[in-house]
């Protein structure tokens, strides 16, 4: 299949395209957010382990990825544990992979008294994130939306205290979980302030709130109220910036509960995006949801077909952004990312 000839050229810039969504206007075509995170290191040709620990490299990698692919959103990101890391959780680093949690900071409930809000000028790798954000805003901020991603309250809590114990405590010690979530929420509010101050968009990722892990009842008790405070803070202080939430994994059982968190954009992974539109389309713009493993394993033709099916499912495509369900795998072949963005050009037209 040779589809290159059939790709309509963009005459609208990336930033302008995304701003159309915020203004309630129709862009030339649907925007495309492949969630390029650690993969940016591949575009710049540096080891992932260097990208992760050097703000200049991280920033340059995302500028290079934007120049290479023309993605409509830059996402500064290394792991979902970055806030927890800055609050004392130990990470293990790898040359060619994202860091993983080595030792959660909280060993027992009483350790919570030692927990402090992070200092963004020195704790963990927060300075790396801040520098990378500044570089991207300075170099390409007039062309594309630059965002910086951090773990939501429950995700941060689950990186500070072993997730298997934390999930049990939702039932056995809910008061302690709430106390921890309160601190994580305050850390998140600080993160939002630091990102907004740098002219970027804060994005909250809450995979531990996935329907694979918590029930709608627990989502309403332990996730939605804290997420809502973050969304409210963006609404109050963001000068018109939308509140953006990404949840990996299965989300369908929690759609209704998620509405209570009051976000403007949901980036979704393993679900039927058409179902999400039915439940939340009146309120929320939806990003998704080509399967990440398919980006790694499938051919460009298969990616094209998968993306086309998603575009068709979204009907009038109002408030729809084509994207990957979760992180674009580090070793994704570049032509598959091209295929995804070209699919937005081909099947995401509002005039067809």
């Amino acid at each position, binding site marked *: 299949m040779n589809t290159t000839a059939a790709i309509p050229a963009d005459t609208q810039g990336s930033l302008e395209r995304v701003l159309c969504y915020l203004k309630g206007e129709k862009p030339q075509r649907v925007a495309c957010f492949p969630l390029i995170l650690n993969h940016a290191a591949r575009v710049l040709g540096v080891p992932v382990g260097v990208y992760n620990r050097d703000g200049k490299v991280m920033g340059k990698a995302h500028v290079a990825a934007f120049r290479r692919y023309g993605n409509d959103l830059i996402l500064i990101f290394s792991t979902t544990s970055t806030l927890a890391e800055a609050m004392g959780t130990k990470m293990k680093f790898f040359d060619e992979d994202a860091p993983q949690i080595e030792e959660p900071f909280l060993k027992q409930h009483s350790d919570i008294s030692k927990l402090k809000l992070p200092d963004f000028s020195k704790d963990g790798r927060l300075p790396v994130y801040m520098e990378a954000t500044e570089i991207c805003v300075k170099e390409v901020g007039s062309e594309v939306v630059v965002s910086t991603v951090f773990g939501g309250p429950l995700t941060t809590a689950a990186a500070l205290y072993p997730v*298997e114990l934390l999930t049990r405590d939702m039932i056995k010690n809910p008061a302690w979980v709430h106390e921890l979530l309160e601190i994580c929420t305050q850390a998140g509010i600080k993160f939002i302030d630091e990102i907004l101050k740098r002219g970027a968009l804060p994005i909250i990722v809450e995979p531990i709130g996935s329907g694979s892990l918590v029930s709608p009842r627990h989502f309403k008790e332990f996730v939605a109220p804290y997420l809502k405070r973050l969304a409210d803070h963006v609404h109050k202080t963001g000068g018109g910036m939308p509140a953006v939430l990404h949840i990996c994994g299965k989300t369908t059982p929690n759609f209704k509960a998620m509405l209570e968190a009051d976000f403007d954009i949901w980036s979704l992974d393993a679900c039927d995006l058409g179902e999400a539109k039915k439940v939340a389309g009146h309120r929320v713009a939806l990003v998704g949801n080509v*399967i*990440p493993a398919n980006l790694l394993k499938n051919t460009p033709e298969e990616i094209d077909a998968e993306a086309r099916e998603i575009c068709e499912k979204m009907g009038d495509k109002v408030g729809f952004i084509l994207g990957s369900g979760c*992180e674009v*795998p*580090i*070793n994704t072949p570049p032509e598959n990312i091209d295929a995804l963005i070209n699919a937005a050009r081909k099947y995401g037209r509002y005039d067809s």
Partner: protein
Amino acid sequence: MARERGDILKDLMDGVFLMDEALVIKAANEVVEAKYDAYDAINNGLIAGMNQAGVLFDKEEYFVPELLICSDAMYAGIEILRPHLKKSDAHEKHKVVIGVVEGDTHDIGKNLVKIMMDAAGFEVHDLGRNVPLASFVEKAKEVGAKLICLSTLMTTTMDGMATVIEMLKEEGIRDSYKVIIGGGPISQAFANKIGADGYADNAAGAIKLSKSLLAQAAA
């Protein structure tokens, strides 16, 4: 005076199913004091309760927190009853090797499958997380397992599953084992591509799949 066997077993079952560990402990001690059959109490009380919890998990009424607490209650009861099992209670069980492949430390999904396999009567050899690929093969040979279960949540490590299958082929023993895979990025298509015997998208599905594969192997 001791309560009826049926009443105590109901407490064991309800205690697991309703996440009431204290009730399980009390009932398990009653079984011991009344000298009721420990094997019967484990199977028709504790494990029956865990299987009920599994049904609710399958229906998305229970989620991970509920299932973990049910399993805590089940294991607390087993701890009390195990010393009272008779020699004749030892039945040959299907042996299974399970673990999260090298490079990945996310193990909640694997742990849930392990819990449900325990409850389903398998003898589970859990290698833990971040497991060197050769260990799956070695362990399966060592314990005489017929089933190998591989888990990963990450796209960076999913190829390790294919490597395990290749290792079995290289040793000429692929047909002696059933290999099933699961985890966030895994799909049936990927399972087909790498020649796995099956894929399940949740813990309950993994148990059904394991049983049917082992029945096939025995046939």
